[in-house]
């Protein structure tokens, strides 16, 4: 897929990364990974809560897991 918007976004990321020192990009990596993990964990928690809620209301089906 070729997208003008995506290209602009990529250009923006490149500009930011170029303006940082390599050591700073390592710190950005640490923070970024931590945030991504938090978002992932929030998704896991949400799915567990939804599953329990469906179960309590007798609406749970196996295909809710996919």
């Amino acid at each position: 897929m070729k997208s003008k918007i995506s290209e602009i976004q990529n250009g923006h990321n490149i500009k930011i990364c170029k303006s940082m020192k390599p050591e700073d990009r390592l710190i950005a990596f640490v923070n970024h990974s931590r945030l991504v993990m938090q978002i992932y964990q929030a998704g896991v928690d949400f799915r567990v809560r939804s599953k329990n809620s469906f179960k309590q209301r007798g609406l749970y089906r196996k295909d809710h897991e996919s």
Partner: protein
Amino acid sequence: MRAKGPGQSALFLLDVIDILSQLRISYAVVGALAASFYGIVRASMDADAVISFQGSKGDHELLLSELMKAGFDATRRQGDVDDPISGVINVEDRYHNRVDLLMGIRGMKADIFSRTIDSAFLGSRIRIVSVEDFIAMKIFAGGPQDIEDIKGVLKVSAGKIDMALLQELTLNYGKKELKTLKTICRR
């Protein structure tokens, strides 16, 4: 232990590096950390390094026992004869932060450790694979993310790459890899 929760594999890597250094095991940080160091910052749930026991105090058995003594889960997997990775030690802490220690990649020469870059990182020092070795390894790996990492490095750190060395190192992995490098550089 530096990691205080999940998603902190880079901090966990520092604990593992302490043990590697105690045993005088050569290492070079690769993977997403190196990709971020030279190119576009991206997230990863694990940290990777290549290691060599040449000139070290012991072998993989000693390393495994020291890692476990430190309270980490450590398992070793041996690659098949035709596997380009000869072996890996997977290390995990109690938060499931993971560090993969690769014990040799086909085509990778031992002098990779003499070209590593020493960098400050969260109050410690780490040795990161050279940009030329990084690109050559990524071309050999050849996956979509690997190619994206290379493109990022070429855009962010283009002026810091020794192109003659890069071609030489890439050729160590094969002629097909050198052709791929030339194609990527032309874009």
